[in-house]
Every structure is written in C-alpha cells, then in structure tokens.
C-alpha cells in the first residue's frame, strides 16, 4: 500500500488530499491499469466464454504450444471446424 501511495505521489503527482479521495478500485482500475511496453493503456479484454470460437481458439493455442504442435495449423483447423458447423 505504501508503495502504491508513493507511486501516486511520485509518478502521477497527486497530492495527499487527492489520494485521500480515491477508492481502492479507482487506484487499481485507473492508475494501475495494465499497460504495454510503451506505457500505453491496454484495452480491457473480456474473458472468452465456453461455446465461442474465441474460447476454442484460446484452448487450442494453449494445447498446441504445450504439445509443440504448429499453432497456426491448429488454429486454422479450429476455424474450419467452426465454419463447417
């Protein structure tokens, strides 16, 4: 918590009264929102739900990487299977 306050003071130049008005949620979701290597804010990614193409692709990619298979090929097959269905 101290490190978080220090970051808000030092990096974001907030005053103590300004920090006092923040909730934990604001600090976490806004000031400590995930960023990429360049420091740009990453968009919020919604977890893919079972029964969707995105979910199957994610699962297939994970399995393909673990098995040392060609990820692109596995991905193509999953897309084909979805197209046929």
């Amino acid at each position, binding site marked *: *918590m101290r490190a978080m306050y220090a970051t808000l003071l030092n990096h974001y130049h907030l005053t103590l009264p300004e*920090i*006092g*008005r*923040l*909730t*934990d*949620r*604001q600090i*976490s*979701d*806004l000031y400590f929102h995930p960023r990429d290597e360049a420091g740009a804010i990453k968009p919020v990614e919604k977890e893919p739900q079972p029964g969707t193409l995105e979910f199957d692709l994610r699962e297939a990619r994970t399995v393909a990487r673990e098995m040392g298979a060609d990820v692109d090929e596995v991905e193509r097959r999953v897309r084909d299977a979805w197209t046929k269905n």
Partner: protein
Amino acid sequence: MGVLNECLAKPHVFEHKGRKYKVSLVNQKIKLQYEQAMFARAKEAAIVMKELMSGDDYRAHLKQLNDDYLIGAYGMDSERGLQTLKSTWGGITLIALLFGVDNHEAVQLLTERKDDVTALLQVILHESFPAMEEGAEKKVEETGTHQ
C-alpha cells in the same frame, strides 16, 4: 451507477425523512477514519481495563497497542479490520462515516431503513474495491474475507 460512477467516485444520495445524505464511497480518507476509530476504541478499552491490570501489565498492553497500530493492524483491510467490519460496532461505524453522521444517527438510519441502507452499502463496497472474480463476492459474504 456503473463504470463511470466507479471511476468518478461520486457520492450517492440517500433521502430519509426529507433529509438528503451524501453517502461517500470507501475512499482512503474513510479507511483512515475507520482505522482511527478502531484505535480510539482500543484505547478506551485499555483505560477501562487499567484497574484490572498491574502497572507492568498495563504498560505492556499499551506498548502492544502502539506496536499494533504502527504495523497497520488497525487498518480497515487488515485481518482485525475485516473482523470488526462484521461486528455491529464496525457496521455502524462504517455507515456513520459514509453517511457523514454520528453513530447514534447511523443506528437510527439502520433501524428505520435497514434494507435500503444494506443494499446501498453493498453497492458502495462493490464500487469501492477492485473487481473480484465471479462468485468471489458470495464467498466474501460467507467467510467475511476480502481477498
């Protein structure tokens, strides 16, 4: 209510008997006030117990109290803080701080509008603390622990 309100931390308005209460979210200031209220209560308890203790025991007790405060054991999100939040005193104190009233008025509000105050408190806690995984809120209610 929603994402924008969570971002802006705008106070809710609660109307009762013609009076409008601005109800704060649980911000760092409220958390600090809760911590101070907990510590003040511990000091009051120590004073009450003074005559039941020897001088050495009393000094040791005060030192322990001081040490605990310095390491953050009275923080709202500490183990002790979360335990007190489940107590009647903790609930009333939190409502009093959020509504900007004294504990007496908080009890009155709870007595007269229990369901509304409880529902608002749930919204406020949701808006004040980082999003929890699906189902975690139910677990918090069951166990009283806030991961």
